[in-house]
């Protein structure tokens, strides 16, 4: 078995996670090498890095010896077009998956994000309204456990109830339960036609779209202090059908039909160094959530149709003022989200500010989650402290 120093290289200046520098970096080429690496790295604290697009999400690691980089763990292993599935290595950039012939992995993600990272962060975008999220589209997974064991769950068929659905457990686990090396996804056909309808309208108007017969693929809101709120609706289907439905939606919202997406579509509403918060709530409470967040000075975007919104604040000044301000905003938004039956999670915040915030907020079932972590990673070595409740 190769020794740790054969599998790793010393970390460079850029090899940090949330400001915490690593000592070593490794980029395994396949599942077997990843298993050998993790076995050799027993006792080290580990954070996994994909495309790095969400590496600043979550709490910085309590400690960090080794970054496992998935940049060499790439490639589409299988694309069974007739079965509408694909098997991909975890480090495969989403850009590559957006180019499958005639078919699509219907997950919105930045091109540089990786398949594994998108799963691990449970990231989602506008089209979740129609296609669901990574948890819905992932049908099989290969993971190297923190003890080096290679394990699989699910399979290559869409319909499968054999054994526990561990793919869901790893989805959104922020790398705290092991290294994802391969994912099997359900694909969808690329629709023949797609059109956007864009309107200046309050978020409450989204209910008219959901309650109608438009079968929208996405229904997004964009609101900011001092600006008229906007709604944008994506319609997909046959050429004739989409034209008719888009015209009907435009009539309901008083909007314009276009084949280009609004410039803010699927763009998270915070600049580098800002504070980014994910807000969830029941559909009927989306307008109230948007109003509270905008009232607090945030730009808000997200799926009015799914009840998942993102609120962004620009970088503030120096702490303590900026910290107090961010703390107040988080408190306000969290209270609003709880009233809406949902949650407010701070995804990212500038260093200095994030230490003063409760990033994850209250989490029901935390005792059970700790027991899960204890079982999968008894040494608490994988992404220590990055997840809920200090997991």
């Amino acid at each position: 078995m190769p020794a740790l120093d054969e599998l790793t290289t010393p970390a460079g200046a850029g090899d940090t996670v949330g400001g915490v520098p690593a000592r070593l970096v490794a980029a395994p080429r396949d599942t077997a090498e990843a298993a050998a690496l993790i076995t050799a790295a027993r006792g080290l604290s580990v954070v996994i890095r994909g495309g790095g697009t969400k590496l600043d999400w979550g709490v910085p690691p309590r400690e960090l010896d080794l970054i496992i980089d998935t940049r060499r763990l790439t490639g589409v292993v299988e694309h069974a077009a007739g079965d509408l599935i694909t098997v991909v290595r975890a480090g495969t950039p989403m850009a590559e998956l957006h180019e499958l012939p005639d078919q699509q992995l219907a997950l919105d993600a930045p091109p540089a994000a990786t398949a594994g990272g998108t799963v691990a962060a449970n990231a989602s975008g506008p089209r979740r309204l129609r296609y669901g999220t990574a948890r819905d589209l992932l049908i099989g997974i290969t993971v190297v456990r923190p003890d080096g064991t290679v394990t699989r769950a699910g399979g290559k068929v869409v319909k499968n109830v054999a054994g526990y659905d561990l793919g869901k457990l790893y989805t959104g686990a922020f790398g705290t339960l092991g290294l994802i090396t391969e994912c099997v996804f359900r694909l969808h056909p690329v629709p023949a036609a797609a059109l956007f309808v864009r309107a200046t309208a309050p978020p409450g108007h989204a209910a008219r779209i959901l309650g109608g017969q438009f079968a929208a693929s996405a229904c997004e809101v964009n609101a900011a202090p001092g600006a008229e709120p906007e709604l944008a609706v994506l319609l997909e289907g046959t050429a004739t059908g989409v034209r008719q439905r888009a015209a009907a939606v435009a009539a309901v919202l008083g909007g314009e039909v276009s084949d280009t997406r609004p410039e803010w579509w699927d763009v998270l509403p915070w600049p580098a160094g800002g504070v980014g918060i994910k807000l969830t709530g029941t559909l009927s409470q989306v307008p109230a959530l948007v109003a509270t967040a905008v009232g607090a000075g945030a730009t808000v975007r997200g799926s009015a149709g799914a009840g998942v919104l993102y609120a962004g604040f620009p970088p503030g000044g120096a702490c303590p003022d900026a910290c107090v301000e961010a703390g107040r905003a988080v408190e306000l938004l969290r209270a609003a989200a709880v009233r809406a039956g949902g949650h407010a999670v701070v995804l990212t915040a500038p260093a200095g500010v994030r230490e003063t915030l409760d990033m994850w907020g209250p989490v029901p079932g935390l005792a059970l989650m700790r027991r899960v972590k204890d079982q999968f990673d008894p040494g608490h070595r994988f992404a220590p402290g990055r997840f809920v409740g200090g997991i």
Partner: protein
Amino acid sequence: MTSIDALAARLRAAIGSSRVLTDRQELRTYECDGLAHYKVIPALVALPATAAQVAAVVRECAAAGVPFVARGSGTGLSGGALPHAEGVLIVTSQLREILDVRPDDERAVVQPGVINLQVTKAATPHGYYYAPDPSSQQICSIGGNVAENSGGAHCLKYGFTTNHVTGVEVVTPDGESVRLGGLAPDVPGYDLLGTFVGSEGTLGVATEVTVKLTRLPEAVRTLLAGFASTDQAGAATSAIIAAGVVPAAIEMMDALAIEAAEAAVRCGYPAGAGAVLIVELDGPAAEVDAQFDEVSALCVEHGAFETRIAADDTERALIWRGRKSAFAAVGRISPDYIVQDGVIPRTALPEVLRRIGEVAAEHGVRVANVFHAGDGNLHPLVLFDDAVPGQAERAETVSGAILELCIEHGGSITGEHGVGVDKATFMPRMFSDADLDTMQLLRCAFDPDGIANPGKVFPTPRLCGERPGRRQGTHPRHTPDVAEIF
């Protein structure tokens, strides 16, 4: 007083005497679920009426170290709700209230004993329905659907139960109540809700379920197409999917299944068909009309000698009647049968169906095929006559061989019925020891003492605390002396 007598006394004190059954005749009512050839009489049955009573029963079981099994309507087909001889059967059918229907939030909150179809009936006046629709939806309970992640014909387009459950309140095996998920999506933390759905009662008992409601479609169009062979019908299915159409349902029946359905309900399917396809499209009228013409043309192109289009709901019901009655109808043409449930990649359909025919012929039994063609979920009905010596064993052999075929082709040993007690021994053929050990890590987090539905899903559970991959010697729970403490 035995430990069970003592437990019965405590349960009577906790939930009332009338809710605890110990009379052997009464217990016999619960000796099996829908898979009737496994029978075990439970030590006692508890019929709690509230979530608090469920928690009280589980707490008493935990304190006494007695295993428990949860049961909804008992329609499962894998022995998932088969009682434990020394354990408590917790029947959730008394928890049957629809607590809240929230069309504006596209959610309904229901108790686990609510019948699947009742959720749709409660949502329909608001323009919504509950999409997962197992064939047994008129009698199966939501709690059972959650336990088994069971779905039906609509799953191809709309997803499975797991995609439509956004929250559960669960009594964990230590008797604690915990909420997983809720009304809103993406609750922070591990997706324990996603792992609970389909865990077959091994992680606890659901006492409340929040489900997603789906907008009723503007248009529904249903087509019945008769083909000479299953190969042709399979090719038509692939062509429909390849054309980018995702129907609400594509169901296939072969000649023997058609014969059974005709004998039972006279559904009037095309005479002489070697296979029929039922294709249903739903959605906005403009989309459905355009795609329906394409689907009809593709069926004809791939050999359909007759296509019928349902003009109204009555005709649609008639088309579906044959399919929905197929399982029961098989009783008309065979004294006994095994319903198998396996999944294969859709593209393997022609080959696997041919191989099933060969294996059946080799062993001298007949197999009727009725299945969800769109997602490759096969339901071969292996027909036999128990009165003929050796035939039941041969049917078992064929049934097992079908699962082997599914695994060989990269599929699964169950698409909706669950593993239960029936297929636990097949799990190691689909999963490695490491895979099964990893599932046990989750089990141990929820149920360290292994009292929630023991003996189901996994062939060889391990003791929690024991590290994975180091199983040695006889499993303590399998040694007679230890088992007798139950």
